[in-house]
C-alpha cells in the first residue's frame, strides 16, 4: 500500500510557504525519515499527513484513497510529539489505554494490549505513575507506547528524540529500530539530525525549502547525493565542495588542478567526503601538496584541516595512521582525491552531474 503526497503546497496565514509542490510516495512497512534543516517543511509535511494541518492545495493518498480532508481520527495514524504531550491528569496506564478507550476497543481486550505494549517498551513498572513523575526517557517511552498500542497503520514521530540527552537519544534510537523490525508498522520520522536519519531510515526524504530534494536509501544518499545541498547536509564533517570549472578534460579551481577526462566543459562544484581523501606522507603521482592548518582528534579518527592558497579542505583519517603524530601544523601533506569518490555538481543548479 502506498502513501503519497501529491503536489502538496502549504502556505501559512503569515505568507510563509512551508511546502511548495511537495511530492513523496512511499510504501507501508517502511521507516521513512523526513530530514531537513529548520524551515524546510518536514514537520509541516508530517502534520499534514496526520491531518492536524490542512494542506493549501494538493492531495494526500493512502492506498490510492484520497484522505486529504479526513479528520485525524479517521486516518489510522498515531503520533509521537516532541514534548510527548502526555495527559498530565492520567496515570501512565490510562495514558496508554486512552486511544483504545476512545476508539471503543472492548474493555476485556484493553488491559492485555496495554500490558503487552508496556512490556515491549519496558515501562510495565511505571504503570501507576503520573507523567509528572517520569524522567524524559520514560515519558518518551510512554508516548511511543500510546502511539503503538492500538496498532495504527502509520506511526508519525515529530522530532521525538530531540528532548532527550545524548546517551538516552542513542539508546532510544536503537529501540525504535528494534520496534520497527518487530512490529512492521510504518514509521514516519521527522528530524533535522542527519545521523538519526542515516541510522533509522529505510529511506530518507531530504527536504529543502518545502520541496523534496532526494528520496533514497541512506546508502544512496551518502554515496550518490542528488545535489550539493544533500551532499553537504549528510555526513560530518560536511563534504568538501570546491568551486571551479572543467575545461579540456581538466578541472581547475583556485589552487587545484585535476584531470577529469571525458567531461564536458562547464562550471561545477567538485565534491569529495573528508573520509574519502587519501593522505600521503611524501609526494606521490596524482597527489596534491597541502599545508596542514589544524589537527582535531575525534577518536578513533583524526580531522585534518588543510589549506592550499585560498582552498581549504577537511580530511578524515584513522587516528592511528602511521606518521600522523609527527605532523605539526604548517607541515606539508599530500592528498589524493580518488576519481571514483568524486562528486560533480552543476555550479548553477547544484544538481548532481552523472
Amino acid at each position, binding site marked *: 500500500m502506498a502513501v503519497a503526497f501529491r503536489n502538496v503546497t502549504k502556505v501559512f*496565514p503569515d505568507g510563509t510557504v512551508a511546502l511548495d509542490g511537495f511530492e513523496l510516495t512511499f510504501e507501508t512497512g517502511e521507516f521513512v525519515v523526513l530530514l531537513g534543516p529548520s524551515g524546510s517543511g518536514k514537520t509541516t509535511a508530517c502534520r499534514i499527513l*496526520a*491531518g*492536524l494541518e490542512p494542506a493549501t492545495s494538493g492531495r494526500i493518498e493512502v492506498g490510492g484513497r484520497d484522505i486529504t480532508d479526513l*479528520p*485525524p*481520527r479517521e486516518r489510522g*495514524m*498515531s*503520533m509521537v*510529539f*516532541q*514534548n*510527548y*504531550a*502526555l*495527559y*498530565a*491528569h492520567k496515570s501512565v496506564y490510562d495514558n496508554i489505554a*486512552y*486511544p483504545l478507550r*476512545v*476508539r471503543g476497543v472492548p474493555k476485556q481486550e484493553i488491559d492485555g494490549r496495554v500490558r503487552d505494549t508496556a512490556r515491549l517498551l519496558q515501562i510495565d513498572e511505571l504503570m501507576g505513575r503520573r507523567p509528572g513523575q517520569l524522567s524524559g526517557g520514560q515519558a518518551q517511552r510512554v508516548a511511543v507506547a*500510546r*502511539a503503538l498500542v*492500538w496498532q495504527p497503520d502509520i506511526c508519525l514521530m515529530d522530532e521525538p528524540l530531540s528532548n532527550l540527552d545524548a546517551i538516552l537519544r542513542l539508546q532510544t534510537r536503537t529501540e525504535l529500530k528494534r520496534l520497527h523490525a518487530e512490529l512492521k508498522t510504518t514509521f514516519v520520522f521527522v528530524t533535522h539530525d542527519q545521523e538519526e536519519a542515516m541510522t533509522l531510515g529505510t529511506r530518507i526524504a531530504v527536504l529543502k525549502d518545502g520541496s523534496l530534494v532526494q528520496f533514497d536509501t541512506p546508502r544512496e544518499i551518502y554515496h550518490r547525493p542528488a545535489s550539493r545541498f544533500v551532499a553537504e547536509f549528510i555526513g560530518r564533517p560536511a563534504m568538501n565542495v570546491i568551486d571551479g570549472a572543467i575545461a579540456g578534460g581538466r578541472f581547475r579551481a583556485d589552487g587545484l588542478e585535476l584531470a577529469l577526462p571525458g567531461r564536458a566543459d562547464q562550471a561545477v562544484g567538485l565534491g569529495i567526503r573528508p573520509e574519502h581523501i587519501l593522505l600521503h606522507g611524501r609526494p606521490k603521482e596524482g597527489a596534491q601538496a597541502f599545508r596542514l592548518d589544524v589537527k582535531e582528534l575525534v577518536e578513533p579518527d583524526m580531522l585534518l584541516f588543510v589549506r592550499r592558497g585560498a582552498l581549504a579542505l577537511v580530511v578524515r583519517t584513522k587516528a592511528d595512521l602511521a606518521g600522523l603524530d609527527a605532523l605539526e601544523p604548517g607541515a606539508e601533506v599530500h592528498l589524493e582525491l580518488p576519481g571514483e569518490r568524486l562528486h560533480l555538481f552543476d555550479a548553477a543548479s547544484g544538481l548532481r552531474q552523472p
Partner: protein
Amino acid sequence: MVALATLVVVLVIALTPYLWLLMTSFKTRLDALADAPVWLFTPTLEHYPMVFLDKGYLPMVGNSLIVAGVSTALSLAIGVPAAYVFARHDFAGKEDLFFFFLTTRMAPPISVVVPMFLFFGYVGLIDTRTSVILAHSTFNLSLVVWMMRGFFADIPREIDEAAQMDGHTRAGMFLRVLLPLAAPGMAATAVLCFILSWNEFLYALILVAFESRTLTVGIPGLVTPHGTLWGQVAAVAVVATLPIIVFTFLVQRHLVRGLTFGAVKG
C-alpha cells in the same frame, strides 16, 4: 518576628469586624446598642429564628443560592468555550474583542442599572430570579473569559493534537481532554463567580422586590422606621458569609493560582 507581628496586626484588623458581627448576632437589642462595647454577655438565640422563619428570610437564602449558582453555571457554559477559542485560534480582531469583554466591566454598575431595569421591564422579567441571573452573568462572563483563557493557554497545543490522534473529534477533545485538564482553573473561576454574584447588591436591589429577593437585598428590609434591628441584620450577615468562607477554604490554593497566574497570562 516582623512577619509574625504583621500577620497578627492584619488578622486583627481583618477579623475584628467579623467577630463583632458574629457577637452582635447573639446579642440582645440592649447589649447591641450599649454605649460601651459589651464583650461579655448572655447570648440569645432569638434573632436567627426570628428573621429566617418569622420574617420569611429563609427563601432568600434559596434565591441567593439559585441566582449565584445558575449565573455561575451560565457564565461558565458560555465563557469557557469562548476562552478556549481565544486561547487557541486566531481570527481578525481577536485581541480587540477580548478587550471588549473587559470593557463591559469598566462602566460603573449604577450607570447601566436603569437601562437594565427598563429592558427587563420591557420583556417582563422584573422581579424574577432570571433577571438577576442574567444581570450577574454580564459581569461573570467577562471574568470567566479572562481567567480561563490563561488556563487554556497553559495547556500545550500538542495535547489537543494528541487527543485528536488518539481518536477524538474536536468536540470530544474539548470535553474529554481539555476540560478535565482545565478543571482546577474552572473551579477557581466558578468560586469567584459565585462569590461575586452572591455578594452583589445593586442589580438585585433594583431588579427584584418581593419573592425573588436575594439575601443581600433582604438586609435593608431590617432597617425599619423604628430603628435598625442590628441583631437580625447581623444574623443574616453571618449566614450570608458562610458559603463564601466555606468555598474560599475549599479552593484557596487554586484561587490564588487562578487570580495571579491564569488571569495575568491571558
